[in-house]
């Protein structure tokens, strides 16, 4: 058995089947993406030992945790697997410091030594000033920070994050996401989320789960920017343009600069520009407005998406426009277009170290799944 996490898990109940195989290398962050009911939480529960799979084997750092064939099921408290859920779930009767000291205390460390460990981890999440508070006196974002420190203080071999940002206020989420990014570096982690942004900022690799099956997995950027499955493409749903951070935004390998807003990663570091297809306007001629991002490209394909038509460009950028606009502009595969997106609609995020991404590349072509699909949209819908 090699280090890292190896999990083969099959769970069947009611009409639901989960059957997945997950490998995470030491120091790697894996994001499991999927919609509600895709089996993400069941997978986490099986890894954490809260649920006994119907069939499967789970090893962590060469320790056997679950082996249904050999009737091995190590209980949760002996797995050395930390869990950070949506809710912080700080113990309401303990102070913040004693919450964080709980793991070391449970491991048999003395009270004073455990508190010293707790203080170190509170410092790691920048929350030492809350040490003497009660959980009831904290905001949701502060509480989640401390829950993270508590999970880390127990010294887990593996950290499981179950939608850790979904219950945090929108304005506090970016700071917490940035903190997670720092803390999770080089830490064996499985992150369950349905937010592409979380996966993008935090994960080295992405695994896409649909109805209990793995439909796609690979390096984060590759899966999110060049989804091979239609499902992953719909899940991703955002334009992601990777490149190098500049003062104003992101410069792609082709030399095109996309101007955006955001905390601003240090210039020269890997970064990605993120914007929604609905914020992209399509023009048949070069527009005149100067402060906007304008990209010349050709139409690669058209795909109906609910009430709008998604226009895929050769530059790999998608735009959502109405069926009426598609016919007004006489869009068809191969047509020359200018894509425009306001700088205020573009968010710039730092990327995890892309050394693991095998193919630094030019801007992506249209997703592979479109190559086989019919590109004629259905205008009658």
């Amino acid at each position: 058995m090699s280090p890292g996490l190896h999990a083969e898990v099959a769970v069947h109940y009611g009409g639901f089947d989960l059957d997945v195989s997950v490998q995470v290398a030491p120091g790697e962050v894996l994001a499991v993406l999927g919609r509600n009911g895709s089996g993400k939480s069941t997978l986490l529960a099986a890894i954490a030992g809260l649920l006994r799979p119907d069939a499967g084997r789970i090893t962590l750092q060469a320790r056997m945790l679950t082996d249904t064939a050999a009737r091995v099921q190590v209980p949760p408290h002996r797995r050395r697997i930390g869990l950070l859920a949506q809710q912080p779930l700080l113990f309401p009767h303990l102070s913040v410091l004693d919450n964080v000291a709980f793991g070391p205390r449970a491991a048999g460390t003395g009270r004073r030594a455990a508190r010293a460990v707790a203080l170190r981890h509170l410092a790691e999440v920048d929350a030492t000033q809350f040490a003497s508070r009660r959980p009831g006196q904290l905001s949701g974002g502060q509480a989640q920070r401390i829950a993270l420190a508590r999970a880390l203080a127990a010294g887990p071999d593996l950290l499981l994050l179950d939608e850790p940002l979904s219950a945090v206020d929108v304005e506090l989420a970016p700071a917490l996401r940035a903190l997670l990014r720092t803390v999770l570096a080089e830490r064996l982690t499985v992150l369950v989320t349905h937010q592409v942004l979380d996966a993008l900022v935090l994960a080295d690799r992405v695994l896409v789960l649909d109805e209990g099956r793995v439909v796609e997995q690979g390096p984060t950027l590759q899966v999110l920017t060049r989804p091979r499955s239609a499902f992953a493409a719909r899940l991703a749903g955002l334009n992601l343009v990777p490149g190098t951070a500049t003062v104003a935004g992101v410069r792609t390998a082709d030399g095109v600069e996309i101007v955006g807003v955001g905390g601003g990663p240090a210039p020269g570091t890997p970064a990605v520009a993120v914007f929604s297809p609905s914020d992209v306007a399509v023009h048949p001629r070069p527009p005149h407005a100067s402060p906007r991002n304008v990209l010349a490209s050709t139409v690669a394909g058209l795909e109906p998406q609910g009430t709008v038509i998604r226009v895929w460009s050769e530059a790999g950028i998608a735009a959502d426009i109405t069926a009426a606009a598609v016919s007004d502009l006489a869009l068809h595969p191969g047509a020359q277009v200018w894509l425009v997106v306001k700088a205020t609609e573009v968010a710039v995020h730092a990327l995890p170290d892309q050394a693991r991404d095998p193919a630094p590349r030019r801007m992506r072509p249209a997703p592979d799944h479109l190559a086989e699909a019919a590109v004629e949209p259905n205008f009658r819908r």
Partner: protein
Amino acid sequence: MHPGLPGALWVPAAAAFGLILLPVVGLVVRTPWPRFVELVTSESAVAALGLSLRTAAVSTLLCVLFGGPLAVVLARGAVPGMRLVRAVVLLPLVLPPVVGGLALLYLLGRNGFAGQALDLVFGVRVPYTTAAVVLAQTFVAMPFLVVSLEGALRTGGERYETVAATLGAAPWTVFRRITVPLVLPGLGSGVVLAFARCLGEFGATIAFAGSLQGVTRTLPLEVYLLREVDVDGAIALSLVLVAVAVVVIAVARPRGAASGSGLR
């Protein structure tokens, strides 16, 4: 403001409230106040009150020591047949206490199978002893503690215990450091309810333990016996029980409210 209450509800509501309050008022009005202190400090009254407080305290402790774990098992144990166990636990709540006393007698009495065994092996006879009073009280009060504690455990949920386990805490550590502290407010109101039920116990006690002054004659039994020969004494002692009940309600109510908000 409330959207409006049908006026017709006020009449039966007032009648219900009056049915509870007026008898107590009657008792207070009829109390022979000049002799009150003398009546409640008579030898037999003091003996009965002391016995009642001692036995109720021991019974409540037994309810916590045995009923507490039972509540945890009912709330957390994943064993088939738990619904049946819960139904049986509620039995003393709906059974007439005198029937419970008879049932105890035919288990632990001279002719009961457990009673015969105890007598033969250890030479122990339970009926008509103070131990019988404690058993009868524990029998009738147990469901009060179990039900309120199980409710508090269920409201609190298992989430904190799960988190504690993922932090490396073994089941006993989780129980000691998470389950028990979080359920203390619920336990508090359960204890008060059980104690009140023990203090008021009559039917099961008289059937199983009899009425021997200083040994098994608790305050409710004393009141009942006194009623025939000394009405004033019976009323004075009744008022003592009312006073204890009022104190119990005053103590139990705020705790009950706290358990709801504390555990969310």
